[in-house]
């Protein structure tokens, strides 16, 4: 019989909850994650859910991580198996020495368990049914009861959970007390009948600091509020819907005129993505800050308008919360797979600005910045999030705002400027940066009006199909894109402790896994300089980084290494020097995966660490 050798760890393990969609477990599971945070221990939770509303399996994973690793780790140390449908797979997924927590009301044949794990049975249904008669209550409180039992098993402080329940049901005394009661039902049963605590434990610490716990979509929506967006048009699509929903909620709170109660915003649920982006373009053309949020299929539909935004030079902000494509792909799984589709969206020669936030804090900052950039550059700006950041809570630094900050409305020719006799050519490159002046409709009775069109026109916006006129305009658009390089967030470089010929490029939600992977790689003797790309067009430091290294790994979450393609394409780099490291099964990339993929490649190259630099 295999030795159980139970895992033992304080503040460093992974608990996974297997539930049935619609069973109301989400709030109990999230409370579990928050309770650990209240112990001062960082957590990194992830929703793993199907693209279905009711009945199918869902999982919620909480990585408890004193070290603060916020990427997914991979593997499960404790499985809370509440879904009979997925039992076999769930049990099989537990790490050797791990724990299985289940509802032991009905006896299970021994073949349903594993010898190398510790099985913990709590008769959850029996406890619930003996206390509650209402079926919905039974369903909901069962979740709180298992939370109570887990708190005893993991040695958590029940006061901290009570506090959370208190905050959640503030003002609803009845709900509050019944939830606390359920918590103690589960907790007391475990304390009386089981050996508590087990090898996995939560101990108070001070590693959370002033960090906040927020979803990327919510942070991006808040960024839109702070960034001055007044028009939002959207069409529901997973995983982006919560951006518009959060924007609506934030606006309801912060954007009403105190005197009249009227809204300083307009939100329209479009009939589709074509209408949503059309509304954004119309509003931006008329001088309002506008955005839409969508995902891959929506981007596909929007491309004609994106081309118009590029060529007619109209600001637009699109938040793309990427999911696994192509086509409907895996709607509730994460990927970074729309890089090429967004960078070159639409027919003809087009190029668009992409921003890649790594976490909710950057999602907030970049969202607000996107509106400045859109107006400054008079073009579409894509905020490229993905499901992993968008729909999961992440621990991140607090959001910050400088009250002195004014919005950059870009180059606007006002009635006064026109009166002064300033030459107005809508597509005239006055400053040599490729960015022309625009006027808002209604500016002046006789000056500054022009006709916006997707058709070719001259510098004064007069329709023209002359080749030289067209080429002149296209060249200016290239200059404008070059200007963008210095306006977008720059890449961040972090060098290895020792000089190395190898580098790694990564972006967005890969960040935490990459940060952790560096440690794992160092332990294997591999040193890598890192460059986190935060925007397209690429800053010149990307080319320098490439020039300084023999090989550069490009880590990304799509099949075809799309960022690598873009780098090769835009920098004229020999593709051989860029090694793709791709992860695209729809689950978030892990440190283990990156370290293995890069480590194996390095081993294959027979890389030995360089000595200290000779000066």
């Amino acid at each position, binding site marked *: 019989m295999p030795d159980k050798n139970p895992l033992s760890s304080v503040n460093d393990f992974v608990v996974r909850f297997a539930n049935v969609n619609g069973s109301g477990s989400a709030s109990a599971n999230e409370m579990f994650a928050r309770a650990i945070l209240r112990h001062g221990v960082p957590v990194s939770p992830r929703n793993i859910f199907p693209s279905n509303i009711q009945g199918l399996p869902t999982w919620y994973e909480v990585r408890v991580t004193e070290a603060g690793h916020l990427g997914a780790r991979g593997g499960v140390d404790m499985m809370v198996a509440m879904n009979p449908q997925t039992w076999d797979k769930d049990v099989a997924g537990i790490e050797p020495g791990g724990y299985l927590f289940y509802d032991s009301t009905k006896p299970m044949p021994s073949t349903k368990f594993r010898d190398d794990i510790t099985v913990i049975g709590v008769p959850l249904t029996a406890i619930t049914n003996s206390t509650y008669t209402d079926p919905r209550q039974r369903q909901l409180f069962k979740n709180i009861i298992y939370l109570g039992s887990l708190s005893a098993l993991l040695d958590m402080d029940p006061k901290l959970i009570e506090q959370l329940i208190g905050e959640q049901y503030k003002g609803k005394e009845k709900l509050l007390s019944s939830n606390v009661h359920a918590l103690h039902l589960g907790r007391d049963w475990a304390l009386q009948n089981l050996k508590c605590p087990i090898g996995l434990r939560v101990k108070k610490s001070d590693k959370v600091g*002033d960090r*906040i*716990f927020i979803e990327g979509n919510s942070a991006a929506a*808040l960024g839109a*509020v*702070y960034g*001055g967006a*007044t*028009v939002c*048009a959207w069409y529901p699509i997973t995983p982006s819907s919560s951006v518009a929903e959060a924007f609506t909620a934030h606006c309801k709170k*912060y954007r009403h*005129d105190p005197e*009249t109660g*009227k*809204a*300083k*915003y*307009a939100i*329209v649920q*479009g*009939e589709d993505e074509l*209408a*949503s*982006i*059309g*509304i*954004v*373009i*119309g*509003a*931006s*053309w*008329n*001088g*309002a800050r*506008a955005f839409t949020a969508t995902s891959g299929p929506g981007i596909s539909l929007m491309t004609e*308008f994106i081309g*118009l935004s590029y060529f007619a030079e109209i600001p637009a902000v699109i938040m793309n919360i990427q999911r696994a494509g192509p086509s409907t792909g895996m709607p509730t799984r994460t990927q970074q797979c729309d890089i090429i589709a967004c960078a070159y969206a639409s027919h003809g020669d087009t190029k668009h600005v992409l921003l890649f936030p790594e976490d909710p804090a950057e999602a907030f900052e970049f969202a607000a910045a996107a509106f400045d950039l859109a107006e400054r550059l008079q073009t579409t700006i894509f905020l490229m999030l993905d499901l992993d950041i968008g729909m999961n809570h992440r621990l991140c630094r607090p*959001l*910050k705002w400088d*009250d002195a*900050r*004014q*919005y950059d409305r870009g180059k606007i020719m006002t009635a006064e400027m026109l009166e002064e006799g300033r030459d107005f050519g809508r597509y005239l490159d006055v400053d040599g940066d490729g960015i022309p002046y625009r*006027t*808002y*409709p*209604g*500016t002046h*009775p006789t000056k500054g*009006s*022009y*006709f*916006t069109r*997707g*058709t070719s026109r001259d510098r004064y916006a*007069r*329709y*023209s199909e*002359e080749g030289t006129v067209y080429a002149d305009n296209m060249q200016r658009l290239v200059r404008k894109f070059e200007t963008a390089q210095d306006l977008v967030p720059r890449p961040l470089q972090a060098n290895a402790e020792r000089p190395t010929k190898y580098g790694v490029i990564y972006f967005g939600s890969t960040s935490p896994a990459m940060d952790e992977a560096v440690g794992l790689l160092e332990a294997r003797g591999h040193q890598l300089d890192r460059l986190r790309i935060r925007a397209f067009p690429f800053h010149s430091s990307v080319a320098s980084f490439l020039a300084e290294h023999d090989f550069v790994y490009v880590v990304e979450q799509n099949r075809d290494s799309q960022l690598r393609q873009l780098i090769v394409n835009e920098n004229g780099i020999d593709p051989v020097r860029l090694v793709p490291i791709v992860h695209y099964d729809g689950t978030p990339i892990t440190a283990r995966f990156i370290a293995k993929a890069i480590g194996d490649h390095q081993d294959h190259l027979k890389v030995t660490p360089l000595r200290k630099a000779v000066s």
Partner: protein
Amino acid sequence: MTYIAKPKFHHPGLKKNELGYTRRDYEGKISTLCAGCGHDSITASIIEACYELSIEPHRVAKISGIGCSSKTPDYFLGNSHGFNSVHGRMPSVLTGANLANRDLIYLGVSGDGDSASIGFGQFAHSIRRAVNMTYIVENNGVYGLTKGQFSATADRGSKSKKGVTNTDNAIDLVAIALQLGATFVARSFSGDKTQLVPLIAAAIRHKGASFIDVISPCIAFNNHAGSTKSFDYVREHNDAVNRLDVLVGRDPIAVDYAPGTVQVVEQHDGSKVALRKIDADYDPHDRLGAMTFLQKHAAKGQIVTGLLYVDPDAEDLHEHLNTVETPLNTLEADALCPGSAVLDKINASLR
């Protein structure tokens, strides 16, 4: 250069409106459409209506899709901003523009291909959202710009220039607009300026979604025998329910209508639409009646023109969204940004 500027010469004797503008101030570039195209007559009617209403030309935003019809905004109101967007998607662009600045006048110009096919959805949704606009479809039953294919408003049984018979049913945009809740619905004929000018003027004054379907024969591809959108056909089958004039509240214009035959409809903004009823029983306040009337006459092969329906108490999208009176595009950080103190509170709530 593929563009023709209009000479700026103004005859000193030209009549001026209340604002001191002449008709020329409402003109745009010289049309590049085929000589005799119905769309040019609609352009002339728009110019006339805006002149008569004494609208400041630059306070109008004219937005269109793609097609010969959608080119026309370049040919009127040269001092206003125009936007030739993408095929069929004028309504969303107009909706966005309207949300950004509720103070301008929005004129949407589209074709039947633009609105009844590729843009059918957007047409419908802008109307059901009650966007404050005047939505004009220059309806010729064909795709003009792409040279004569049937559009979705071509009547079943009508013949293309190449002699092909259309076997698909036609979409009647007026019927659809009525069904979708448009609060001003009219149909007219490009060749009937007397009817069209006041209709456009009334639509502009109307607060809410105004829709005018204007039959506008395509000289090049749809003015032959067998077409139901040709000049001759429309003239023969036109059945006008009313003629109207717009009476602007502050300075009523005397109308020469005999008492008893004129029905005055007050609009939300105080202006009045005076209708000369041709059909004694026709009531333009009855949506259901309008729908039935339309269908009955269509079955007889008659094209009903005139103001078919108006709701004088209409609301618009801004009212539905309860937005501030100040145009959203003028709000800056002080009005929009909740500030760092609020953000600190938000941060605190997220721990």
